[in-house]
């Protein structure tokens, strides 16, 4: 089929291009400029070449923060995705329970990130926090301020509490879009609960699950505010993720050059992962459409 192309439509994109240029491209260009120079303030810059990139790539501090970030993202994905599916499967499909559940699920998502951090910072305190105090009373030696393991548990549980709802809502949207005919056919075939999940619900949720994995991975990989408010990156450096380390370097130490180099490496990794996820998603859609046409 011949399509009619109208390239004048590109002019409609110009306002967006202008906004993106101001909010993203110009700052990114500036970061690239900073990454090859050194400065001591007063708007004076000295050429450093690839020195900061080399320093970053051979720095234990950078790779340690990267490792913590990957570990954190892996753990939260392993918890949030199955938990989100489980909750979505058990949510009511009709009646008054639907709006109630949806509102309850949406509540954590409406809370600003720094407030979530503050809530969990107070909640986990052993002297006045409900969680910390209760755990201490039942004999659990919990203190997220001094114990790295407790700090990790707190940050992970906080993220699960904050973001599982997103996975739930996406999965729920996928589940309610499945026509009843599928369930009726499964019932006629005498399919088990597991078979219905494995061969009907899971394939139908695939697309939203990919979006959920993409969003949660990106977001957890760029996490800053919540762990910063709760632990400040500590105890020691145990919860210092890339973004926290970056801010410490840029704002705390005023090492603009190394921080800019680190930003670019961080940005490239995010860009690569986004592209991989996007490619997988779009090709999965194309393959599904092809199967539908052929089938």
């Amino acid at each position, binding site marked *: 089929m011949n399509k009619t192309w109208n390239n004048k439509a590109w002019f409609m994109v110009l306002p967006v291009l202008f906004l993106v240029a101001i909010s993203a491209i110009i700052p990114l260009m500036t970061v690239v400029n900073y990454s090859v120079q050194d400065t001591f303030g007063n708007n004076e810059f000295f050429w450093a070449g*690839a020195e900061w990139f080399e320093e970053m790539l051979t720095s234990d501090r950078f790779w340690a923060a990267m490792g913590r970030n990957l570990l954190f993202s892996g753990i939260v994905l392993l918890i949030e995705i199955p938990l989100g599916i489980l909750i979505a499967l058990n949510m009511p499909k009709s009646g008054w329970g639907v709006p109630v559940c949806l509102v309850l699920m949406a509540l954590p998502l409406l809370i600003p990130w720094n407030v979530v951090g503050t809530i969990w910072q107070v909640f986990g305190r052993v002297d006045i926090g409900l969680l910390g105090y209760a755990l201490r009373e039942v004999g659990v030696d919990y203190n997220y301020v001094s114990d790295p393991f407790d700090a990790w548990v707190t940050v992970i549980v906080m993220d699960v509490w904050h973001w599982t709802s997103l996975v739930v809502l996406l999965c729920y949207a996928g589940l309610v879009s499945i026509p009843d005919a599928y369930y009726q056919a499964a019932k006629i075939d005498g399919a088990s609960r597991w078979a219905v999940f494995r061969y009907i619900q899971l394939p139908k949720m695939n697309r939203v699950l990919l979006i959920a994995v993409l969003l949660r991975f990106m977001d957890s990989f760029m996490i800053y505010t919540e762990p910063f408010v709760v632990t400040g990156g500590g105890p020691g450096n145990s919860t210092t993720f890339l973004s926290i380390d970056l801010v410490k370097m840029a704002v705390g130490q005023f090492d603009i050059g190394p921080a800019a180099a680190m930003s670019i490496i961080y940005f490239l990794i995010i860009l690569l992962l986004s592209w991989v996820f996007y490619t997988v998603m779009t090709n999965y859609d*194309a393959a599904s459409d092809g199967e539908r046409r052929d089938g």
Partner: protein
Amino acid sequence: MDLSWMAWTLPTAIFFGTILLLLVSMAVWEYVSPGGNPRVGVLRFETTRGDRLFVSLLGSAFIHLAWLGLVGPNLWWALALSVVYAIGVFRFV
């Protein structure tokens, strides 16, 4: 307009100028010889010319970083490798 806060240098200006030139060249190429429709290459998924440019640029960035981290600060060989890689991407991906 004072742009001194952007801390421009000649090498970074050349770098961004090259990227701009590549984008303009892609547009001219498509205008002169249309053919940017998706095709399936060695990666077994559809790519357009734009996709292949993106993959080339992103891959080149990682080639430079890997060279810097594993070999050393002389990046001319990394640049040469990136050009070979980009030609490979445009030819086979």
